[in-house]
């Protein structure tokens, strides 16, 4: 027999008000209440997914400088050993990855090497679709893997916002959910908060916001209509969350430490949203999409790629530093991905074409750090590109199961062997 929401509330904590609004109650209490619901308590873990649009050249990001094949095939794009930030005797970061290199030294970054999927598509739309759905080749797949994770995470008795997109482009398909409305947040300016005004007016006029069964304005919640209850709780959560977010924005903690770059501004928004404790578990951000200047560099790649890596590196360092100073880094993991790597062999236009294997980066305070898996072999190319050996869905499964505590099998539709990523 399934319990109604109200019965559940009464059974677990005795007072409906406690769960009326997760963010409003002390974290300890809310976590205790959650524990009855979730089998594992990872409810305050946050995943930030960063899409590098266009197919990042992994070979010039984590550079196999000691491999002769690299130097031989990269006649114009080859990066000199002395300019790199050395990882070990074989690999080094691109010179614009100074800040990432620093994070790596500190154990706040991991590199999962050789990621892709068998018979990976080299068409942008198809490959991106595969990474977004995590259902390779299923053209008719209706939802994205993040959207499905959001639907799973939303199966709680309290109103929650499991995931949001923060970025200027159209919402990536990865966030397509069957059930939940997934918000897209472009910025956090005054206009976005205008809705707070009438809510605040009502709350102030009604006075009591904290009583056991208080509505927003102190009125009792109507019994017997679960939808009315739910709407009520959402309004309260919107109000309390909005107030908290506005306080965070007013204090503007850490904001001045971000460089004036688009990705940095989006990561700053994410940091503010994490600070405001709105219960958002998954953030999705993007770099390189929406027109010129992406990672898809078929010609004259060098400077464009360097600029993107610089933006990513500086932005990520600012984000990690901000979270660290705020004592939140242990709760956050960032995972990057790109639809494919690029060819080792240059294409004659000082650029590279669509490839396969690429490194995937993780940032955070609770990582094992270091390299995961081996660098893809450069002496065995398929259509000019090194082959991937680690299925991207293994990384997805690992962050779902072991970081977010969401069942990866129900999200991915299959079991994928986890990787050792977290400390």
């Amino acid at each position, binding site marked *: 027999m399934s319990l109604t929401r109200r019965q559940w509330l009464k059974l677990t904590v005795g007072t409906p008000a406690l769960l009326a609004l997760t963010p409003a109650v002390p974290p300890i209490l809310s976590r205790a209440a959650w524990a009855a619901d979730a089998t594992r308590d990872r409810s305050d873990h946050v995943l930030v997914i960063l899409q590098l649009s266009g197919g990042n050249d992994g070979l010039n990001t984590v550079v196999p400088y000691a491999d002769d094949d690299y130097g031989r095939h990269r006649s114009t794009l080859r990066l000199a050993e002395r300019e790199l930030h050395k990882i070990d005797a074989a690999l080094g970061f691109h010179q614009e990855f100074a800040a990432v290199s620093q994070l790596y030294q500190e154990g706040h970054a991991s590199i999962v090497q050789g990621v892709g999927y068998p018979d990976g598509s080299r068409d942008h739309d198809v490959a991106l679709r595969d990474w977004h759905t995590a259902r390779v080749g299923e053209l008719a797949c*209706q939802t994205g893997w993040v959207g499905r994770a959001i639907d799973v995470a939303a199966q709680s008795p309290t109103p929650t916002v499991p995931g*949001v997109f923060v970025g200027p482009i159209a919402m990536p398909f990865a966030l397509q959910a069957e059930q939940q409305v997934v918000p897209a947040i472009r910025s956090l300016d005054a206009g976005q908060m*205008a809705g707070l005004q*009438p809510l605040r007016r009502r709350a102030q006029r009604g006075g009591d916001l904290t009583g056991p069964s208080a509505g927003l304005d102190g009125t009792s919640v109507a019994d017997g*209509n679960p*939808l009315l209850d739910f709407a009520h709780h959402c309004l309260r959560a919107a109000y309390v969350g909005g107030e908290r977010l506005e306080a965070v924005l007013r204090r503007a903690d850490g904001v001045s430490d971000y460089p004036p770059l688009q990705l940095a501004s989006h990561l700053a928004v994410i940091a503010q949203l994490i600070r405001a404790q709105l219960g958002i578990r998954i953030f999705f951000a993007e770099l390189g999409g929406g027109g010129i200047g992406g990672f898809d560099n078929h010609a004259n790649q060098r400077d464009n790629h360097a600029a993107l890596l610089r933006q990513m590196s500086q932005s990520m360092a600012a984000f990690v530093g901000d979270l660290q100073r705020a004592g939140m880094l242990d709760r956050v993991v960032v995972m990057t991905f790109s639809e494919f790597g690029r060819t080792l062999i240059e294409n004659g236009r000082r650029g590279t074409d669509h490839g396969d294997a690429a490194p995937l980066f993780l940032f955070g305070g609770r990582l094992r750090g270091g390299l995961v898996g081996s660098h893809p072999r450069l002496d065995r190319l398929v259509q000019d590109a090194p082959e991937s050996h680690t299925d991207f869905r293994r990384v997805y499964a690992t962050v779902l199961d072991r970081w977010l505590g969401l069942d990866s099998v129900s999200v991915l539709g299959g079991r994928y062997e986890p990787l050792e990523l977290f400390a």
Partner: protein
Amino acid sequence: MGGTNQASAGGDSRDSSYWEVDADGAWAAYQPGGGRPWDLRGAAHLYRRAAFGANRGELQQALADGPQAAVTRLVRSPGEMAEFQRAFDQYDRAAESSGSDDGPRAWWLRRMIETPHPLQEKMTLFWHSHFGISRARVTTGRLMVRLIHVLRGQSLGHYGEMLAAVLREPALFLGLSADANRKALPNDRVARQLLAQYGPGPEAFDEGDVCETARALTGWFVLRDELRFVEREHDTGVKRILGQSGPWTSEDALRIVLQHPATALNIVRRVYRWLISETGEPETRWIEPLAASFRKDYDIGRLVETMLRSNCFFSPQAYRQRVKSPVELALSLIRPLEGNVPTLGLGGVLAELGQNLFRPPTVKGWLGGRHWLNPVAMMERVQLAMALLTPGGAYGAGLDPLAVVPRHDVADPAAGAQFLLNVLLGGDVPEEVRERLCRRATESDAAELPGRLRELAQDIVTLPEFQLA
């Protein structure tokens, strides 16, 4: 309406003169009397479900006419409809050529705002979700607009004819990624959708039925935006679909689906969720009488009319048992306040709230219910209402509450407040909320009244009751 004496219509739904219904009397026509009075709550409820909310005149008319005549008014197509539709179909043709679906989306919203036959648009929206076809896969916008025109034409017509017409639309095949149905490589997507969503529902068939139905659908191709039947690609062999064997074609598959007893039940269940309640799946026993009638001729208009006229519809089982979709939310401000707002931007905002017209999220359509609501979406819903009520903002002149308050009520702030509660919520809010809202309005002097009424309208849209249909 308008005076404070209307307060007697208030109280929340649980006390009340509303009544319990049982399965036997559920679908009989509701006749007011005794403990079942016809009042503002019922009239507003009817207009929220069968239309996009009611303005003052419509509510007054409904109260005067009684429930059955009010339903009649909503289900009958007004005489001027043909002219209205012709004009808007022409606007659609102009908009669809732009390539973007912003134009058609804006025109559909405009049509919902202006239509003299709102039930038709309400049901068109329902069928749009039911068929689950998204512009995302339909490469040509014109085909998507045409599909909606087909749905509109049959929205209160015959389900069998509608289904047959939809199966002739290239948009259906494109939307389900099934533009090539080869004999050697049957595509099962249309078959699956036909059985699971348009037909008997997921419980009634197995994978064998899907494969065999897919074979019956072979030969159909979308070529240069036209649906073509290529004879040599049609599998003429014997197929066994839902227990019937023969050399079936797509027409046969459709006939077999309509003959299956679960099909009517599946559609009735979905219409029930749309018109009556999202809070629980109705028991089969409860809706079987409707399904039995619907099964005879698949007359959608009669099904909808029976539901709207019923005791069940006017009972607590239906009252406020739905969440307004984003489109309904916006329209439930615009139509009662008799405004007309620019819809181009509105369409985009509604998309961000989760209801992007022409683009349902999956082939299952919009699931609705509490899925519409979460704290961030709620903040955005309140913001949209605020923006609509703010002059000189994103919606031009915006909606002006003062413009619709009857002249004699303007002088009396409490009456003005009550008036807004009546048109926006059928007057039905908890007593203490009403008192506080009215008190606030009466504290102001006449000069401040326009601002106060606007503020009051903003306060009303932040009530949880306003989120419910």
